């Protein structure tokens, strides 16, 4: 009994530490900005910190907790960004502005990205192996392509969609083009702020922590650790993996909303919604520790900040990321490395502290 009590306490302490970390960071930033000590460079990074943290935490739900690899996280972000920006931009055209629209936009972004997650998840999560990785990658590219090719306008007859050009929309005189193909959406209202980002991050973290420690979360983790054993005790693999995947997708959509309303123009470039972005988020998750929520946030913040601080290293950034990715994977997952670490730990008991950093899903031989 004591063991479970202890475990519960540790969990509660870990969860509390995440909340405290975010709130203290927020308080410090607010205090500094009140004193006027935040440089414009750092000030411009505050909302991206929140965006990337939300993305990293939500991808961690798929990669770390559910044990599936999704390479299309940026695609879901793109859906959230575009669907919400269409709404707020059109409202702005109609002359309606206000922060309550941002709340509606967030709901729109979360719901559309979540629906996309279900649509992608249902066919793919039935398959085993690396299919989810390749299909989500393909999906991300499809979304980026469509976002680049689509023209969308509104007039009194309703919405008009075209894949050719603005003229093809056939709008009346009072019509208004929202998405202009590769030029994207221009003039999105600037609703995102650091406070909004932190509130969203706290909500996302709360949802994920509660999910992980619930019955559903334990089922998801059981499926990750041993699919066959978990299925044999009656846990539906598709259902629970789909739950994790959909929640993660809709959270990526929320991050997209935050991203879209932080910029004045929204275009789907490979840089922001492409494969590169998905990989960058994956790097945050892997370096922060798979399955570790706190680690994801810290990694997202540090790895967003570092390249800006070390401008000369800009060219080498992705090279260093890739090398670190390979080295981390070999050191944490290679069977021979694991044996070696065991030997080291027996010799130097102090190293046992490293255990918590290790990736949780070790016994996945059969997967």
């Amino acid at each position, binding site marked *: 009994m004591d063991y479970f009590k202890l475990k519960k306490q540790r969990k509660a302490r870990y969860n509390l530490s995440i909340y405290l970390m975010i709130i203290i960071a927020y308080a410090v930033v607010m205090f500094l900005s009140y004193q006027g000590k935040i440089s414009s460079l750092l000030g411009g990074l505050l909302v991206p910190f929140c965006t990337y943290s939300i993305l990293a935490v939500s991808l961690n739900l798929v990669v770390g907790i559910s044990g599936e690899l999704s390479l299309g996280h940026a695609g879901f972000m793109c859906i959230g960004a575009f669907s919400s920006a269409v709404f707020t931009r059109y409202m702005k055209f109609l002359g309606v502005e206000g922060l309550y629209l941002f709340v509606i936009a967030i709901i729109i972004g979360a719901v559309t990205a979540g629906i996309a997650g279900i649509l992608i998840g249902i*066919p793919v999560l*039935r398959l085993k192996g690396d299919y989810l990785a390749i299909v989500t990658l393909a999906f991300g*590219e499809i979304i980026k392509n469509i976002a680049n090719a689509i023209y969308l306008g509104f007039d009194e007859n309703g919405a008009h969609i075209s894949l050719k050009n603005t003229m093809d929309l056939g709008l009346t005189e009072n019509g208004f083009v929202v998405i202009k193909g590769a030029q994207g959406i221009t003039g999105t209202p600037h609703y995102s702020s650091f406070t909004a980002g932190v509130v969203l991050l706290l909500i996302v973290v709360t949802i994920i922590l509660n999910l992980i420690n619930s019955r559903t979360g334990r089922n998801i983790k059981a499926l990750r650790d041993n699919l066959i054993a978990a299925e044999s005790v009656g846990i539906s693999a598709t259902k629970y993996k789909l739950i994790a995947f959909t929640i993660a997708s809709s959270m990526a959509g929320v991050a997209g909303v935050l991203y879209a309303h932080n910029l004045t123009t929204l275009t789907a470039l490979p840089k922001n919604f492409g494969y590169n972005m998905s990989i960058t988020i994956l790097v945050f998750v892997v370096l922060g520790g798979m399955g570790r929520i706190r680690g994801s946030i810290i990694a997202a913040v540090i790895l967003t900040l570092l390249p800006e601080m070390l401008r000369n290293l800009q*060219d080498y950034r992705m090279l260093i990321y890739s090398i670190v990715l390979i080295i981390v*994977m070999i050191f944490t997952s290679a069977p021979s490395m694991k044996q070696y670490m065991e030997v080291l730990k027996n010799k130097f008991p102090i190293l046992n502290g490293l255990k918590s950093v290790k990736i949780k899903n070790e016994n996945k031989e059969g997967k």
Partner: protein
Amino acid sequence: MDFLTYLVSGLSLGSIYAIIALGYTMVYGIAKMLNFAHGDVLMIGSYITFVFMSQLGIHPILSVILASISCTVIGIIIERIAYKPLRGANSLSVLITAIGVSYFLQNIALLIFGANTKSFKSIVTIPPLKLFNGNLIISSESIVTIALCIIIMLGLTTFINKTKMGQAMLAVSEDRSASTLMGINVNGTIAMTFAIGSFLAAIAGVLLCSTYPTLTPTTGAMPGIKAFVAAVIGGIGSIPGAFIGGLILGVLENMSKAYISAQLSDAIVFSVLIVMLLVKPSGILGKANIEKV
């Protein structure tokens, strides 16, 4: 006649996909891993050919051979350093490592050769073929590509079925531990698979860049992913499957570019993958896997 022109160029593009897909499908069948870096080995091969041919002035054919050999070595080195330590680890870690390798290759190429586009001179010098009084012109690149693809297909099938090494590959893909008991050098066989895959990638890279003469560090990424899609459509692990899948994908891509929308052609190609996975996840020629507990 337009239709025929698109068909031929589609078949040519499809042949390139097929050659890349062969590397994917062999590695997937034997090492049971998705080698994300395959498309980037292709890009490295094209750069090496470019350096030999355009900057050192070596004969095109000789440069291609040299590039293929270098790529073979690179493939073996990648396997030895990055993938071999992870044998027996869970598939997620292997996949992430492969992505790391892919990014590493892209960024190395970016640092060495720079981000600006290199214009690749075609290695094929024979004149194009004119049919129907010049109404249908088949470019010489298409002819060479399709011919080479068929030769490679036949050669590889013979290699797998007639040689000891090929039989060892089949055995390893069937059951790794049983083939170890039979005295097959599993590590050697897997290294050999990577060597063949990378060799083919270099050839595909040269053919790709001869047809579409632009070379950037990300040249290999998209064709690599599409070739994997081709391998999945054809049935992963099957060599004729990779061939069929590649051709289907190439023709489909060119047709949708010509008749539907150039911007959406990638989206259409990837939608086919999703539909295929829904209808027949094992692919056209793939064997359905029976899960044993």
